[in-house]
């Protein structure tokens, strides 16, 4: 069979329509489309794609099952290593991970692994996920702090090993960044709920409204009989630029903006009680996935014009290629090589943002070319809302109340990369709380490693 160089396209909501609604943008493959795409996989003997996946999904195997029409088996195959396939199929930066390693890249486009993963997971979900095999229970209790991707992964793996796992969440809803951060149009919340339901069926307990570090400290958890703790508390305080005008009304952190919209459903205001200000011209500062999410939410909330303001060029943008592509299709304006220097306001409200043009100089510590201001290129953008999407510093609460937990100068919990072990015996950590803002799948990878390490720590076999 001749090699198909181009991947099977996935149906999407029309940009002109979707820019004003919160429904999912990408519509997924049909069974025929999925089988057609799966047949492009040449089933490498030594598959590099698996190495590219932080949780080592058995990619060629699950794709083979799709070619055979065994879609539910394909989903089960993925779930052997990935507890949240419907999520990962949608939000992983596949083009930097599994798909980057695909041999088809040399001649054409890689196999659309992410889309196939999503297809298999969705297919199974629609038909009802089979009851998980109940593991043989041990009497050992493990606490997981945070119900985001790191915590959910660690909890699932530990529950499968028979541990009595309780997940503590500080918010009123489970899912962490999957519910407060990533918008509905990219990751439907009903789907996150279903993934969490499967964990409940595995026997994982969930407790909301517990702010670890305050409501319960790590010491309390040990006193209450937990024998190991995994910390996956995720993102903390948002970063600002430290430029004049950031305290003006109408300047948000992306965390605030997205949480208002996603978790608190401010787009339904006044049906939902949490409000968000209507803005006409919005500038989002930053070039990551969070910036794209904030910009596209602003558009959906009715803004006339939304700008992404990023100090480097598109090549350096950390956002997933697909998100940048979708944002452009929807009419988001990209002001690249542009950096804000001051936010301007009247009567305490934002009215504009002064920016300066940048050019790329020599590579900096991150290996990317350092942006340098172009003298005399200052200009003023008229905007009535500014959203800062510049990353976050780790949540400070646990660090300040836990004895013997070593912390980086910038606030991250110090944890062994291979095991997640912290400076305190029995306490493991992973995800953004350790690395600073990163991706869902990296957090899941860390949760997985830590679960294995906790198992070993509690006397289990590797």
């Amino acid at each position, binding site marked *: 069979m001749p090699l198909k160089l181009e991947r099977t396209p996935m149906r999407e909501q029309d940009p002109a329509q979707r820019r004003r609604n919160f429904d999912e943008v990408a519509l997924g493959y049909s069974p025929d489309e999925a089988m057609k795409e799966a047949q492009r996989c040449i089933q490498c003997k030594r598959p590099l794609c698996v190495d590219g996946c932080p949780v080592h999904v058995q990619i060629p195997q699950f794709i083979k099952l799709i070619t055979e029409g065994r879609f539910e088996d394909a989903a089960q195959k993925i779930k052997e290593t990935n507890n949240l396939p419907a999520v990962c199929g949608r939000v992983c930066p596949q083009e930097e991970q599994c798909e980057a390693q695909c041999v088809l890249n040399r001649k054409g486009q890689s196999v659309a692994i992410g889309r196939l993963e999503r297809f298999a997971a969705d297919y199974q979900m629609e038909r009802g996920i089979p009851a998980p095999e109940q593991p043989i229970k041990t009497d050992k209790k493990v606490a997981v702090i945070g119900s985001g991707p790191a915590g959910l992964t660690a909890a699932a793996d530990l529950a499968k090993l028979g541990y009595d796992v309780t997940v503590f969440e500080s*918010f009123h809803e489970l899912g962490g960044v999957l519910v407060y951060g990533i918008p509905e149009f990219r990751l439907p919340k009903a789907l996150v709920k279903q993934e969490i339901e499967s964990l409940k069926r595995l026997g994982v307990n969930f407790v909301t409204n517990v702010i670890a570090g305050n409501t319960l400290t790590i010491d309390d958890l040990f006193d209450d009989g937990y024998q190991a703790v995994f910390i996956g508390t995720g993102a903390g305080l948002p970063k600002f630029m430290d430029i004049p005008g950031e305290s003006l*009304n109408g300047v948000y*952190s992306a965390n605030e903006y997205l949480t208002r919209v996603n978790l608190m459903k401010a787009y339904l205001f006044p049906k939902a*009680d949490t409000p968000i200000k209507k803005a006409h011209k919005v500038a989002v500062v930053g070039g990551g996935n969070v910036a794209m999410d904030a910009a596209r939410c602003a558009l959906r909330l009715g803004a006339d014009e939304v700008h992404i303001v990023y100090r480097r060029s598109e090549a350096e943008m950390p956002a997933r290629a697909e998100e940048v592509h979708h944002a452009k299709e929807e009419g988001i304006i990209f002001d690249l090589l542009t950096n804000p220097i001051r936010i301007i306001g009247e009567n305490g409200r934002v009215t504009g943002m002064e920016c300066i043009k940048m050019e790329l100089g020599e590579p900096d510590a991150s290996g990317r070319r350092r942006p340098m201001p172009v003298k005399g290129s200052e200009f003023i953008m008229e905007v009535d809302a500014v959203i800062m999407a510049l990353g976050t510093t780790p949540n400070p609460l646990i660090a300040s109340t836990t004895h013997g937990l070593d912390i980086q100068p910038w606030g991250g919990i110090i944890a062994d990369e291979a095991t997640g072990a912290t400076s305190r015996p029995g306490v493991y950590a992973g995800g953004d709380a350790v690395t600073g803002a990163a991706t869902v799948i990296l957090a899941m990878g860390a949760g997985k490693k830590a679960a294995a390490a906790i198992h070993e720590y509690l006397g289990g076999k590797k």
Partner: protein
Amino acid sequence: MYKILRKEKLAPSVYLMEVEAPLVARKAQPGQFIILRVYDMGERIPLTIADYDRDKGTITIVFQEIGKTTKLLAALEEGQYIQDFAGPLGKPSEFDGLKTVLAIGGGVGAAPLYPQVRRMHEMGIDVDVILGAKSKDYLILTEEIKPFCRNIYIATDDGSVGYHGFVSDVLKKLVEEDGQTYDRVIAIGPLIMMKVVSGITKQYDIPTIVSMNPIMMDGTGMCGACRVKVGDEVKHACVDGPDFDGHLVDFDEAMRRQAFYKDEERLALLTLEEGGQCQCH
């Protein structure tokens, strides 16, 4: 779900609720706050802890009906439940090394002041208290606070009881005319009251702590909405506060930020009143 064990009307539109929340009660300290959500479409609002009972596992909150959320909350009765109730949040107030303190509470600000005064009394600190309100009917917790303070002074805007005027007038009288000296002034109440008090104590070099209650969303150190300018620094009331140095807080900015959602707050209230019923059931 968190059960309301006791509800009392303390003043017109001011309520006290004792809520079953054993985990929060186990850890609560004076100066800390909780975040609650009345029902599943509700917003998260912060309320400073007015009392706690570790044995009973309860937290007491005092609030005034102002917006939609506090109206919905006030509509709940004993035996009913609050959907979400999380805490304790923020840093506990610190009283180490103090000998004489003047504690000032304006309006419902008396509520969070109460556990602080009691704690200071337990620590052997002499506490004078000024409580202020619109009128006699609006004064709350006077009798509860009395046993724990050396002197208590009352001020009402209309003179219906106590001094006819503001708490700041009483403060001035105490330090200017009576020559009272204090190691610290603690002021909790409306922003304008805390601003005026801080302005006076600055003249007399009396260190002053105020409790900030800005717009918050998550309350756990994640969204950055509650930023407050304190001196040259931007602080977050939820994790760095809510107590801050009153001489350094930028009150004008805080007032501006607090008013940001005024229109939406009015709209929400209007929708509630037109709907005519509680939407939580």
